């Protein structure tokens, strides 16, 4: 063993290491637990939960693109009640921080979901999805509007003592303005970024490949965009950032931390390599050892621009 400290803090949230599994890429943990020891990762962010179960979009929901993929799942989920009754008991056997991602069609629904879920002690924090590009009601209509993001942050904060993270959309001109309002309204951190809106056509049928017409682009293709958004927030607003966007290996994690992330989330890579989280944690430890970093959190925002 060595004395490398991989632990990080996202505001009030303490994690044993900076590796979280992103919402929508880890389900409710059960499938993933067959591949990796969930006790070793920094935390899990659940599939977006809504007040009532959602069926999600009809097929086709996904299409591969160069170094990435488009998805339009449409927030298919079991709803908060079934989650509490049937999904949480399984997760409780693990010593892993659980962050509940919440999606909603109205401000009231965000508040309602939070009120119900906050009573469950096992939940460490909330990540509020104001940026899903694949549903007609809610989602981006909030994420693109600064006053809505501010309102949702304030109202959700008012009904829970647990930390609240707002997951921001990259489909805006200045993401830092959204991070600023989150901070002003008492939000504890931001996740950046959600997927980028994209589409793809079949050149024979001339129809979109995805039923929803557009989908959210994820994977290595969006990494440079995500990094620039993290950097923009870091330079403009003093708020903890969880970096997300195409992270596939430990080198990417280091890059995101240098750009300003306190922790990161692995998304699309979980589909390709379900054991990526563990390999990345090992890689980070070796990196710290090699470069004499005692605590990985020293990396956060350590960029040198000139």
């Amino acid at each position, binding site marked *: 063993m060595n004395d490398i400290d991989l632990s990080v803090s996202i505001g009030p949230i303490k994690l044993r290491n900076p590796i979280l599994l992103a919402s*929508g*890429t*880890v*389900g409710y943990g059960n*499938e*993933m637990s*067959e*591949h990796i020891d969930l006790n070793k990762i920094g935390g899990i962010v659940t*599939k977006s939960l809504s007040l009532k*179960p959602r*069926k*999600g*979009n*009809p*097929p*086709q*929901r*996904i*299409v*591969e693109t*160069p*170094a*990435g*993929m488009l*998805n339009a*799942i449409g927030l*298919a989920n079991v709803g908060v009640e079934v989650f509490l009754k049937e999904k949480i008991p399984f997760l409780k056997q693990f010593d892993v921080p659980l962050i509940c991602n919440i999606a909603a069609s109205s401000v009231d629904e965000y508040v309602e979901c939070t009120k119900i879920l906050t009573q469950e002690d096992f939940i460490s924090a909330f990540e509020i999805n104001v940026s899903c590009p694949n549903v007609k009601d809610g989602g981006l209509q909030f994420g693109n509007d600064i006053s809505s993001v501010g309102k949702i942050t304030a109202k959700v904060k008012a009904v829970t003592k647990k930390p609240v993270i707002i997951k921001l959309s990259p489909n805006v001109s200045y993401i830092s303005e959204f991070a600023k309002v989150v901070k002003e309204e008492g939000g504890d951190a931001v996740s950046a970024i959600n997927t980028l809106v994209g589409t793809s056509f079949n050149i024979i049928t001339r129809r979109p490949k995805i039923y929803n017409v557009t989908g959210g682009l994820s*994977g*290595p293709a969006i990494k440079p965009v995500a990094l620039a958004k993290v950097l923009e927030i870091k330079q403009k607003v003093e708020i903890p950032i969880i970096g997300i966007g195409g992270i*596939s290996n430990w080198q990417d994690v280091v890059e995101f931390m240098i750009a300003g992330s306190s922790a990161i989330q692995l998304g*699309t890579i*979980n*589909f*390709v*390599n*379900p*054991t990526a989280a563990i390999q990345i944690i090992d890689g980070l430890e070796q990196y710290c050892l090699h470069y004499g970093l005692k605590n990985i959190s020293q990396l956060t925002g350590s960029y040198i621009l000139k």
Partner: protein
Amino acid sequence: MVTAKSFVEEIIKIENNIHLLKIYSPKIASEITPGQFLNIKVSDNFFPLLRRPFSICDVDEKFIYIMFNILGDGTKILARKRTGEELDILGPLGHGFKTEGNFDTAIIVAGGLGAAPFPLFTKQMSSLGKNIYSFIGGKSESDIITYGMNNTFISTDDGSFGFKGTVIELLNRNIKILQENKIKIFSCGPTPMLRALKEFCVKNNFDCEVSTESAMACGFGICQGCPIESESKKDKYLLVCKDGPVFNIKDVLI
């Protein structure tokens, strides 16, 4: 279900430009039932990014066979693999065919590359002492794959090989075989064929399992990318990767 280090043993060209990839993968090979699939990473980089799902065609002790046609970037890369190259495989995935049950005759209905899961299935049926009739259809002679199947009945849309017409029409012409035995139908193929088969099975009250396919990313239920409409539960989708890929034809909307 595991990710296991596996190695390319050889690539064999069979009929009509169809390739068989023989993979050394003892751990996965020991757990397979017919109709399950593998999700294979064909490259060790982001081109292409996602794994590719393949029906398991056959198993021979420590070796697994998959059948493929060169159609896109993934299969192009796969076809260039050399003996000894490492292959990153996730599997076996999903639920396969229920090979045991109250029937003495298995009727295979395969369209085009839908023939892929049936060599292993045929082996297993034979070892269970069941009779097998294999109805195989395609657009043209070049689509017909009979590899690993017995008692074949062939149809082509253009009449270039066997019966001229669809495989379901051919099935209907031989309905006596079906009615005189205790049968169960097992099928895999393009959606229009499965749709016609469903109609045929409902009309004649035949029990039938179908192997479905869908675009997918993970292959084990976390991406939710491969929904298929359930006949009974309208409030949620089933997943091809986890609830399937084999379903009773009555349970899914095709």
